[in-house]
């Protein structure tokens, strides 16, 4: 009886969470423009979507932005994590707290403050305008903490003697880091990079504040389309984004370094 109740509870929970998305996906195949009447199945909206130049541009902006900002954030964030890990005491706590602020701060504050900063800086550099550059800087900025937060725990787990063993066996500190420490934290860095990529895809508010007139990401273009009136193309676009993000999350979660290593070990044993 209790088991049944538990199952019902779970079903209701999932229903509340996913019903809106399910409706959206279903209506992206709706032949009627109406959101209440089912006019038969069609792939028309997806076809229109593919023909829409502005959406295509937004898609390429979104993907390149996600890729580049994730790349930059991963390099900066991983280096920062290594630095923070070697800090001690109150200084470390302070740096960690400062690092965490962008994660807990509302996006709107982040977006607005970046906009204010850019407008202030443009005052000194009149040639520069809001655009892809500012978008990239903004996305990199809010992505860095996610990389740090995924790399730091891995560094904490790491046996400090590993690095010392590398030095002991003749590595200079830099060689020791690249040969041993980096190898050990690679899985966490990859996870951080994928997380950053997802966060960038997901973002609307910061992009909205820091993009130029001509640039659009998928989320900002959906927003501007929705303001002009309901177009079922939006449903199709949203459905694609939902599935894409879902797939990405699945890849991140199934990326288990210990499993990968085990497979590798078995392969090597097969050789011998």
């Amino acid at each position: 009886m209790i088991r049944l109740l538990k199952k019902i509870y779970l079903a209701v929970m999932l229903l509340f969470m996913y019903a809106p998305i399910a409706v959206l996906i279903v209506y992206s195949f709706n032949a009627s423009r109406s959101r209440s009447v089912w006019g038969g199945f069609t792939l028309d909206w997806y076809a229109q979507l593919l023909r829409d130049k502005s959406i295509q541009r937004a898609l390429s902006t979104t993907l390149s932005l996600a890729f580049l900002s994730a790349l930059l954030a991963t390099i900066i964030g991983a280096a920062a994590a290594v630095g923070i890990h070697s800090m001690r005491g109150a200084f470390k706590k302070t740096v960690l707290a400062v690092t965490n602020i962008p994660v807990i701060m509302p996006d709107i504050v982040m977006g607005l403050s970046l906009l204010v900063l850019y407008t202030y800086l443009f005052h000194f550099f009149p040639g520069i305008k809001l655009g892809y550059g500012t978008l990239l800087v903004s996305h990199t900025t809010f992505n860095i903490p996610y990389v740090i937060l995924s790399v730091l725990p891995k560094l904490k787990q790491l046996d400090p003697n590993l690095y010392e063993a590398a030095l002991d066996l003749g590595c200079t500190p830099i060689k020791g880091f690249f040969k041993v420490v980096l190898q050990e934290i690679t899985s966490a860095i990859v996870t951080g990079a994928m997380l950053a990529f997802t966060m960038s895809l997901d973002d609307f508010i910061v992009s909205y504040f820091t993009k130029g007139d001509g640039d659009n990401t998928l989320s900002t273009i959906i927003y501007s389309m929705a303001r002009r009136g309901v177009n079922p193309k939006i449903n199709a676009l949203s459905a694609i984004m939902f599935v894409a993000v879902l797939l990405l999350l699945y890849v991140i979660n199934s990326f288990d370094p210990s499993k990968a290593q085990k497979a590798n070990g078995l392969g090597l044993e097969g050789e011998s």
Partner: protein
Amino acid sequence: MNEREHLIDLVDIEKTFGTSTVLSNINLFIRRNEFLTLLGPSGCGKTTTLRIIGGFERPTRGDVIFDGKSILNLPPYKRQVNTVFQKYALFPNMNVAENIAFGLKIKKADSRYIKRRIEEMLKLVNLSGYDKRQVTSLSGGQQQRVAIARALVNEPSVLLLDEPLGALDLKLRKEMQMELKNMQKKLGITFIYVTHDQEEALTMSDTICVMNAGVIQQMGRPEDIYNEPQNVFVAKFIGENNILDGVMRDDFWVEFAGKNFVCVDKGFARDEAVDIVIRPEDIAIVAPGGDNLAGVVRNVTFKGVHYEMLIESAGFVWKAHSTVMSQSGQEVGMRIAPDLIHVMRKSEYSFIDALPETLVERAGLSNAERGVYTMPVGVAASSATH
């Protein structure tokens, strides 16, 4: 040019972390090809001393001399020293052969040479055929062997070992003790070994350096440390002992347990208060009466090779070993030969009845195992002193 006898000299080493001093006034030398053990309870500074030699820790004061030259400013990767870490610190992403080859690859050695050396090392540590195995799939003992091979392949002048057998079970530990000792003799390398296990230290070492609270208590051959402990700390740490207060009446004449004894010690002040150490196996159980110490057997435990007896005499409970069983409650006499009475000058350790409990626990031994018991030494003291 003749070789220096001392390979490593630690000169006036002091190490402080923040406000706490972990090492002070460390002066010790390590001879060429010797097996030296740093022995002491947890937190005594033995690992820090090892890390200073390895180059992972810089002393606050003092100097580290290697073969006549200071290596204080030499980073670990330039020292002719390799370390076997307590938890092995094998590189988990590499297989056994890759782990062993690491040091040689860094030095850009010839690949055929590396291959040959890997095989030699695997043979040395009895792991031939394990080269392709992942290190995470090995048992603790096997990982330990890989760690030793990984260090020895670099042909260091000195091998540093930080409690390398701590995680192994007793049987494996005994085996590895013998293997390590044989390896050291065969290769002719200086070993510096850190442990809290006194038996391990006595079994393996050429020289033992007993440490406590960041200070060297005694240095010497295992026999010297065991037979002639310099203070109560060493006596208690190194084995089971009866430790009493005594008074040196004159040269070769000491009073304790309310009686006068002939001893072999001299050079003390007249009536100087001293510590007396008598090993349980040095007490001969005889018939009561005569000039012997009279006592009553309170407890008898069979220990295999001998019976361990607790004998109460004049308020002090003696621990004695004998192959002849006595009954509990039986009156016996105890005789101690003059050369088996160890007279030590009073030290800061004379007034502790036992090692601090926490310290003992961390060292993984109970008080009973260490031969320290909580019977009031003070009672014996009052009867022994005038």
